[in-house]
């Protein structure tokens, strides 16, 4: 049986891993390669790097990090942040990424999802959706690190990117991100039920129960978390053992 995946996420800027709350107030969490290796050893199923660098002149730093990571970490690596063109996708894949995640650029130019997945295959293309509740049972897609309300309905947008060729959706609840109050399970379930491609739940994990809930109640195919792993509260292995104890299929 296919295992549900646990994916530690590393927000990277200026060559360091950082973590904030609700997209602000960043704390330094260490060297990305060292951290990725540690998660691999703990049994992480994948690792995600999100390049949150604002300035384009620092953008190339992530390529070197990806290259170094691919030499030492033999699990799938997803990289996102600042991807605007098919060429950006190619450069990241050539550096050693297995999947590339796009967010703002996909909203501004949905053809990018189609063009990129046609060129490199759907399996490499992840569309990241930052969603915020605007009414009960209704979420809008936000861009630019959560500052812009696009007015797009999250469920409709998820269906659209799946139809355009996305291979996976990385779904982050803006309301929950960094709060440690757990995933937005209603949002996760609504998106997961609406599309036939895998959905990664993100935003809000504060304990291991939250991870299990993301799979069993949110019906996510994978769960992503950052701070609970970075600051040593839990290891990936503890998370997996907990999920297994709740009857969830995991790779131990």
């Amino acid at each position: 049986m296919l295992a549900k995946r646990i994916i530690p996420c590393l927000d990277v800027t200026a060559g360091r891993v950082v973590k904030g709350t609700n997209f602000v107030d960043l704390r330094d969490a260490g060297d990305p390669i060292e951290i990725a290796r540690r998660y691999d050893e703990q049994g992480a199923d994948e690792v995600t790097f999100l390049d949150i660098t604002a300035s384009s002149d620092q953008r190339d730093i992530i390529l070197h990090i990806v290259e170094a990571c691919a030499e030492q970490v033999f699990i799938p690596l997803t990289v996102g942040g600042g991807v605007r063109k098919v060429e950006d996708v190619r450069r990241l894949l050539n550096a050693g990424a297995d999947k590339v995640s796009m967010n703002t650029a996909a909203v501004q130019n949905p053809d990018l999802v189609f063009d990129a997945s046609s060129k490199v295959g759907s399996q490499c293309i992840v569309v990241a959706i930052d969603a915020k509740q605007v009414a009960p049972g209704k979420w809008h897609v936000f861009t630019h690190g959560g500052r812009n309300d696009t007015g797009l309905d999250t469920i409709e947008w998820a269906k659209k990117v799946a139809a355009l060729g996305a291979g996976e959706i990385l779904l982050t609840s803006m309301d929950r991100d960094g709060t440690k109050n757990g995933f937005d399970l209603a949002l996760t379930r609504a998106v997961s039920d609406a599309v036939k491609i895998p959905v990664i739940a993100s935003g809000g994990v504060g304990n291991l129960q939250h991870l299990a809930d993301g799979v069993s109640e949110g019906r996510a195919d994978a769960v992503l978390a950052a701070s609970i792993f970075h600051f040593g509260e839990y290891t990936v292995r503890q998370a997996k053992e907990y999920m297994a104890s709740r009857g969830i299929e995991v790779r131990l």
Partner: protein
Amino acid sequence: MSIAVIDYGMGNLRSVSKALEHVSGSTPVVVTADPAVVAAAERVVFPGQGAMPDCMRELEARGLRAAVVQAAKDKPFLGICVGEQMLFECSEEGDVPGLGVFSGVVKRFPDDKMIDARGERLKVPHMGWNEVAQRPHALWAGIADRSRFYFVHSYCVQHIDPALTTGVCDYGIPFTCAVGRDNIFAVQFHPEKSARDGLQLLKNFVEWRP
């Protein structure tokens, strides 16, 4: 003597070459689009990523088809993902012929079978870590039966000679995810992304004397 990773412009070969370097000791790993280098190599790795029609077209366009078919006849040969699928006769994906090294076809996961034991809908692509039930083969040495490997695909080989099957995975349907005959071993999953067990499989390939 070297291990040649065949480069026909489809996808990221860095992961494959770095994983091989990790286990190959002093044997050099070369990523190459040169048929002469492929012919001179001690063993050959044939990866593949993306859509099979694109892979076949690029293989032809770069003049590598004959070198690949020849290598599959006479030296240790490892196909990975679409590199496995291309060894078969044809693919439903784009209705394109493959290299025809093995009989059998590549088909999409059947939509009506994509339900798991708990009645939940299975997503396509089949993405993530799934168990592989092994059939006896030298390349499984040191890897426990039903170990998990990393898969990413929407198509798989079907209607093949059962004697070819060296590994079976279950995703809605049971499907062959590893094949072997003589000097050829080919897998649907990605050993280069499958952590310790994947590296062990690559190490077994590097040391394989079929």
